């Protein structure tokens, strides 16, 4: 295995394109090193992007935030303005792993691992985040929900690399939240994750995005669930409909972390609880 | 070494079939080792079980493995499975 730490994304893309065998991009490394250790992935090339200028930066852009590909959880959560705009995204990222993992783990890495249970992804999907992708044909912006195509599979082409994530402008009267269910209080992979981002017009929900994790081969954006609460002030009937549509959207598996029945039911429970938090946040 | 004396030895239920259906065996002995040897002599089918390891309770005190512990006259003697731990 070769290790390279290029000083630009152009160089990174060149390295990735030149590799005949398997290549892996190293951002925080909290997934890649586990895969290396277990022998589930045996790359010929590791491209460490952390020495590329700007990858640790969070910059204001069009009222939103551009987050460098190597920004760690610690760095993200230290950014007070971003956290104030998108508390759900910040919390979702903060839930990944331990204090130690937070010192390394990145939004970009979480997205590229493409685990259906990735904590930050539903929050980013609900937020309407996009990923900036660079390849040999230049750069493009992709909706976060379009990156993962199946468990541990992404839509990126050979040689493509995500250089940053963009969180759009929060705007007025908005709030987001992410909740996950785990058996312990920390250190687990989400059995179910639910994120809600919404804006209010007075007491009523004006717009909403609801996203679910760990209940399908990819993180889901559930339009029906959003529609269930748009135009309401989260009355009981709306909440029940939200839970029902969220549960109905689930297509989970039974595994060591949870059963189909459990995941389906909990998706509804968490969607409701996350909606309530997002609503309260939007209220200010 | 004190004189051998009569001892009534209680067996656990699972040993009954190997002691001709008895759950008590009467032997003459002064120590745990003598007692176990005498029990085997009386019921040879118990040998495998006793050799596989047993402990002996004498008046409630569990003798895990020693064969030289004295058994006082009139003592309550119970053979139990061998004890160890984690």
């Amino acid at each position: 295995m070769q290790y390279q730490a290029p000083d630009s994304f152009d160089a990174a893309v060149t390295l990735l394109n030149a590799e005949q065998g398997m290549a892996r991009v190293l951002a925080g490394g909290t997934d890649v090193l586990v895969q290396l250790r277990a022998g589930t992935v045996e790359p010929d090339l590791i491209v460490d992007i952390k020495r590329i200028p700007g990858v640790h930066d969070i910059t204001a852009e069009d009222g939103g935030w551009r987050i460098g590909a190597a920004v760690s959880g610690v760095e993200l959560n230290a950014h007070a303005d971003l956290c104030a705009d998108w508390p759900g995204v910040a919390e979702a990222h903060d839930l990944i792993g331990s204090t130690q993992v937070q010192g390394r783990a990145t939004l970009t890495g979480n997205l590229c691992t493409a685990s259906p249970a990735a904590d930050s992804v539903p929050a980013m999907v609900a937020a309407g985040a996009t990923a900036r992708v660079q390849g040999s044909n230049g750069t493009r912006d992709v909706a976060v929900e379009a990156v993962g195509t199946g468990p541990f599979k992404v839509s990126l082409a050979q040689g493509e690399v995500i250089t940053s994530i963009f969180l759009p402008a929060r705007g007025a009267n908005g709030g987001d939240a992410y909740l996950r269910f785990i058996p312990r209080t920390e250190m687990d992979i989400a059995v179910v994750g639910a994120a809600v981002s919404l804006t209010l017009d007075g007491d009523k929900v004006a717009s909403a995005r609801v996203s679910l994790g760990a209940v399908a081969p990819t993180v889901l954006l559930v339009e029906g669930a959003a529609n269930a609460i748009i135009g309401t002030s989260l009355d009981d009937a709306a909440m029940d409909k939200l839970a029902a549509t969220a549960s109905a959207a689930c297509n989970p598996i039974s595994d060591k972390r949870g059963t189909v029945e459990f995941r389906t039911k909990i998706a509804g429970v968490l969607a409701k609880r996350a909606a309530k938090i997002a609503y309260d946040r939007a209220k200010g | 070494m004190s004189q051998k004396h009569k001892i009534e030895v209680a067996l656990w239920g699972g040993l009954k079939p190997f002691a001709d259906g008895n759950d008590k065996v009467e032997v003459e002995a002064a120590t745990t080792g003598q007692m176990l040897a005498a029990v085997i002599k009386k019921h040879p089918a118990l040998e495998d079980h006793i050799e596989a390891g047993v402990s002996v309770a004498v008046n409630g005190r569990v003798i895990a493995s020693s064969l030289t512990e004295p058994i006082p006259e009139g003592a309550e003697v119970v053979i139990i499975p061998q004890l160890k731990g984690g």
Partner: protein
Amino acid sequence: MIHVTTTINGDETEFVCDPRETLLDVLRDRLSLTGAKEGCGTGDCGACSVTVDGTVVCSCLVLGAEAEGKEIGTVEGIATGEDLHPIQQKFLDHAALQCGICTPGILVATKALLEKHPDPTETQVRYWLAGNLCRCTGYDKIIRAVMDAAKDMRSAA
């Protein structure tokens, strides 16, 4: 093999390693700094905790090659000469270790905690240390030692 120049506990250090070796492998096998322990190798137990440029990380989730130009801190660097750091002393005073295998990682993580949050609540301490597994103590005496160390360090500051 890769040649790396780094700083460990304040000392400039050079090593060569296979690109697949982790920082933990390097510390233990190449530099004989065996204070960081491998409990899992997958970032789940925290026994290998070190700081990289002041941020606490699992050294099993860092490649040795990534240490180039970084400042690494390990348990071996916590005491000053023969003087124990207050958190080390509190761990002894509170009998906060039984087998001691998790202790180096917990001390590294605690030191980072108290540098960032000198007055943590019990809940904050418990969540900060959630990635440091201890199987002996039930955490009770560890949490008490950390809280007590924080108190002493505040009054000394």
